[in-house]
């Protein structure tokens, strides 16, 4: 029997993005329960017990993060990270389109848990239409008495506002996001202090990914134990895997954490385009190391512990499938261009390193390079590592170093075709 969807419930229930339909299906009962019968601390404890981990990439335990909020400094804010800009990631968008109220309800419960009276949804600027839809839905919630002052007759009040970014991947990084929300350049802040201590407008702030928040109403409604019945011991729950690249059926797949790459790619994704051979997998979008798609890898469960054993990360679970027709110099040229374009420029190694890598890879790709350039590229990428202010710079080296280490033949072949450089 097919497991009912938990996050992509709109696939089971038509028109779930209509408030009436959502409420007919139990919508906002979890929020009501939290506000009327649970102490904020109890909500935090339930989420902690569920083992829910952040779905934005870092996999940080959500309840634990909430418990870090500084209760000596007020007001508090909650910000939903709807920046979704990692290449290969398109899950938050589907949630916000198809099942928006579940996400909003999660945001509202999170706000109650940390006693924030204002929450923001930071959407990438491209989600312009989505933001307008959300605005209308937030208004509906006001009209329905689910947002506003003194909710359910308690002292608790909450307002939600959307805020549109304007085209900058770095604004997905939570501190850059906060800067951007304050009307500044989206450049990451120094950490510590972390947002739960000093966040938006200098106040304690919780930043959570859209998908993370969409889990919360179910956890409150059905309990931590129920939630733990999905997924693995250390990575409980379900996850939306964004499958893209050279597969027959790309798309979002909601599966328990711990599902293998093989099941995702070959059962759900229906195998490789044109029946070609799979060559590599990127598990965390463009920020991933390249996993050599051998049998061991394909049988690896996709969870926060197993993927690192392959020398990669699960990240936001944006699975990009690479087949045998793709040469790695072409591929990392794509990722390098991406990171060079998106580097915020604040710290030296990322700003200069991505720029330098771009020149080298372009040269290699244009056929004007030799093996020394390949080695130089490796050097430059290693030189960036471990020195950047935020993870973007580090991400920019993942595909490069792993491609050079794991697929040297692609580069050797590329430079061998060419005239000796210079």
């Amino acid at each position, binding site marked *: 029997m097919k497991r009912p969807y938990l996050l992509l419930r709109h696939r089971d229930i038509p028109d779930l993005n209509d408030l009436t339909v959502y409420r007919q299906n139990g919508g906002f009962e979890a929020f009501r329960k939290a506000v009327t019968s649970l102490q904020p601390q109890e909500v935090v404890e339930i989420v902690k017990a569920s083992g829910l981990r952040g779905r934005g990439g870092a996999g940080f335990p959500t309840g634990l993060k909430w418990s870090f909020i500084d209760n000596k400094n007020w007001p508090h804010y909650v910000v939903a990270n709807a920046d979704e800009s990692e290449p290969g990631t398109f899950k938050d968008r589907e949630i916000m389109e198809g099942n928006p109220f579940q996400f909003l309800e999660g945001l509202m419960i999170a706000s109650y848990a940390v006693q924030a009276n204002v929450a923001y949804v930071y959407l990438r600027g491209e989600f312009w239409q989505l933001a307008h839809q959300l605005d209308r839905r937030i208004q509906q919630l006001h009209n329905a008495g689910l947002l506003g002052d003194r909710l359910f007759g308690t002292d608790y009040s909450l307002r939600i506002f959307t805020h549109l970014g304007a085209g*900058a991947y*770095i604004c997905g990084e939570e501190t850059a996001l906060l800067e951007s929300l304050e009307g500044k*350049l989206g450049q990451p802040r*120094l950490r510590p202090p972390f947002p739960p201590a000093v966040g938006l407008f200098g106040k304690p702030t919780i930043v959570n990914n859209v998908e993370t928040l969409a889990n919360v109403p179910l956890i409150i409604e059905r309990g931590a134990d129920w939630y733990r019945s999905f997924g693995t011991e250390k990575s409980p729950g379900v996850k939306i895997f964004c499958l893209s690249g050279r597969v027959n059926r790309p798309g979002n797949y909601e599966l328990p954490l711990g599902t293998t790459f093989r099941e995702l790619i070959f059962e759900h994704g229906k195998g490789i385009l044109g029946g070609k051979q799979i060559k590599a997998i990127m598990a965390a979008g463009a920020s991933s190391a390249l996993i050599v798609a051998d049998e061991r890898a394909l049988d690896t469960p996709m969870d926060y512990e197993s993927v690192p054993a392959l020398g990669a990360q699960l990240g936001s679970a944006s699975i990009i499938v690479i087949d045998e027709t793709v040469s790695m110099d072409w591929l990392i040229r794509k990722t390098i261009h991406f990171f*060079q*374009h*998106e*580097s*915020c*420029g*604040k*710290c*030296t*190694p990322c*700003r*200069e*390193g*991505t*720029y*330098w890598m771009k*020149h080298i890879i372009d040269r290699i790709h244009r056929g004007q390079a030799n093996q020394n350039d390949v080695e*130089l590229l490796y*050097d430059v990428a290693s*030189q960036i590592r*471990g*020195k*950047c*202010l935020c993870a973007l710079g580090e991400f920019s080296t993942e595909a490069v170093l792993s491609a050079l280490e794991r697929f040297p033949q692609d580069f050797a072949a590329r430079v061998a075709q060419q005239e000796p450089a210079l």
Partner: protein
Amino acid sequence: MTKMITLTIDGIQVTVPEGTNIVDAAKKAGIDVPVFCYHPKMHPVGMCRMCLVEVGRPVVDRATGEFVRNEDGSIKIQFNPKLETGCTTPVSEGMVVINTSEKVKRGRKDILEFLLTSHPLDCPICDKGGECPLQNLTMAHGPGSSRFLFDEKKHLLKHTPLGELIYLDQERCIQCGRCVRFQEELVDDPVIGFSQRGRSLQIVTFSEPGFDSIFSGNTTDICPVGALTTADFRFGARPWELNAAASICQQCPVGCNLTLNVRREAVASGKVVIKRVMPRQNEWVNEIWICDKGRFGYHYTESPERLTQPLVRKEGELQPVSWEEALELVAERFRQAGENLLSVAGGRLSNEDFFNLRKLTEGLGGKTALYTHMGGGDLVALAGMSKDSNLAELGKGDAIFVIASDLHQEAPIWWLRVKQAAERGATLIVALPRPNRLDKFAQHVLRYRYGEESGLVLAMLNVLSAKRPELPESINALWRDAEVQAAAKAFAEAKNAVIFFGSEGVGLQASQALAQACANLLLLTNHVGRPHNGLIAVWQRPNDQGAWELGWRPSPELREAMGKASALYLVACDPAADDPGLPLTPDFLVVQDLFLTATAKLAHVVLPALPFTEREGSLVSGERRVQRYYPAIPARPGARADFAIIGQIGKQLGMDLEDRIASKVMLRIAAEVPAFAGITYTTLAHAPEQWPIIGRADLYYGGTTYENQQGIGVQLPNGVERGEQLTLSWPALVTLAHHGEGYLAVPVTKLYDGGSTLMASHLLDQRRVGSVIWMHPAEASQNAVQDGEFVHLQIGEASAIATVQLDEQVPQGVILAPRSTGIPLHEPRLVQIKVVERS
């Protein structure tokens, strides 16, 4: 007491206050951790990643909280596998920092190599060449040769003006953000910023005029490469060709310490010329900053218009004569005048000048008068800042009260230091009838009507004490005001408290009253005679306070006194320009100045004086710090130092005055004036070590501000400390007619005015206020006056033409007029306004 932390850096044990970062801790131990983005005066941002170090921390047993030990008994240290940025990592107990390992060197070399991928390496033609942190650090840590292909370098705009004062070379910029952070964090003028991103990140300004900040020049000192340069110095010279002379800024009473860089030049026919003005560190005065007026305003000293010969009026014309002839004539006529000699002098003079002039005048039985529109210096001498005071020490628990002064415009560095004290937690009370740049940092903003400033202070006194002088009802209403009450209480409760009083909207008499009211408040709340407490007057000139300390006083009836004197000796003042209606017709008029001023044109004898750049002397700052300045370039032939001229006149008259060596005058001052006891040019030259360490050896750390090797000066003990009595007294309140014939016009002080110490600095032309009056739009529409119109102002017997500028921040019922812009207004007065032309 802050907790102290002990750690080890490269084997050296260091103990520093908790919260110190690794870079500073190392610096204190004499170890250099290279930095680009970090600056000891700003919060760390960890952007450039140059300061990488290896950091190990003691392993702590979770259960016991004790350090875990190795078998040999030493504390077990766990090293972070990643290098950490020293500037953003606070020290912790038992920390072990490694600054010299291969790993560290490798990390820094990597970062430098990255920085150089974009850098043009145009050191031979760069203004910063020779004092460039990037250049120095590349020598020390950099890669030998470039692995980056030259033709792939990014080519960007060079020499783009950010405004008319500061130029940007985009290619040289290393995006450290020091300039941007200085403007935002330190001086609250975020008028430059980064735009674009990634490798395209660059400094931009959208302000009008460009880079619109009175502190802009400082960014060129802290820029660690040659990306920001001043229009004044760009391509001016190479740093190593320059000689340096210590000096003191003469533009306001703060007394910022300067270094004048000079060079001999062929284009100046082999003469030594000033190439630039740089700040010199004095953490008690200006830290490492100066304002742009101080940096760019010095050009008047090198004006070709300067006087270089004594002039004597013969057959109605001023004609050049020899010094002997001039001095003989002056001495003879002064002798004849005797007690009818009146010497009037302005606050540009040094202590030595004032001392000699008073000796000379009183020796003949004549009278002296300080030329100023502001009083109260006697009270500052009694209850001013005590010895060993430093505004930098004020913070939480202390209070600062600023009244009748727009510090941002009148004394920029005081504005900065007061702002910083407020940011450290000091209670700031700002009282001015209009919004100003300190309001934002104040806990209490008090608005009063022009004319009520003393009343406001007395009202605060009434809040605190039962001694209630009879006050008019309007003032009584003030002390019932909740904000005034709160401010008064906060002031009274403060551990240390300082009052700045200025002269916005007050003239001589009213400011004397204001000073008395402020002194009362300090006395009553026990804020006198202790370090970090006292009264500060925001004078118009650099040495007004010195004059008061040396016994000079303004004359309440100067006009009459000048009318009565048979011989007038006017030094460093230009009353004819300030008050065109003044009848300056004594039997004998001697003017001593730098230029042929309006007053000099009326004189019988004109004596050419030297500017501060060409002589030595000492000044007393508003905080009562005596500071020495040194000659930077040789004296222009023909002109002489003021004290020397005065001394020579004295010699002619057989008096015992020192006329050659300034330091000897100081010895006499010290012998005669109790506050100066013990002060010599040697004590003034005492230069203790300061923090942060600034200097040529490690430019990357603090910038190119000069290290202070020539003396931080000596703060005078005030009267109360020396046992004199400060008594409460109730000044008579001056009442202003707010209504009557015409408008109540109020003089205000603007930084870039038309004063003689600024007019020759054409760089600042765009920013100078002209002859304008500011008025509230409602006021203007009521009286059918429009923005931009020319008006004729009738001020008593004098008149002027001004342009109208409408401004909602001007209180209704008054118009504001800037001082030193040709509008003869010294205190609030009713003036008549007539539109002369529709624009």
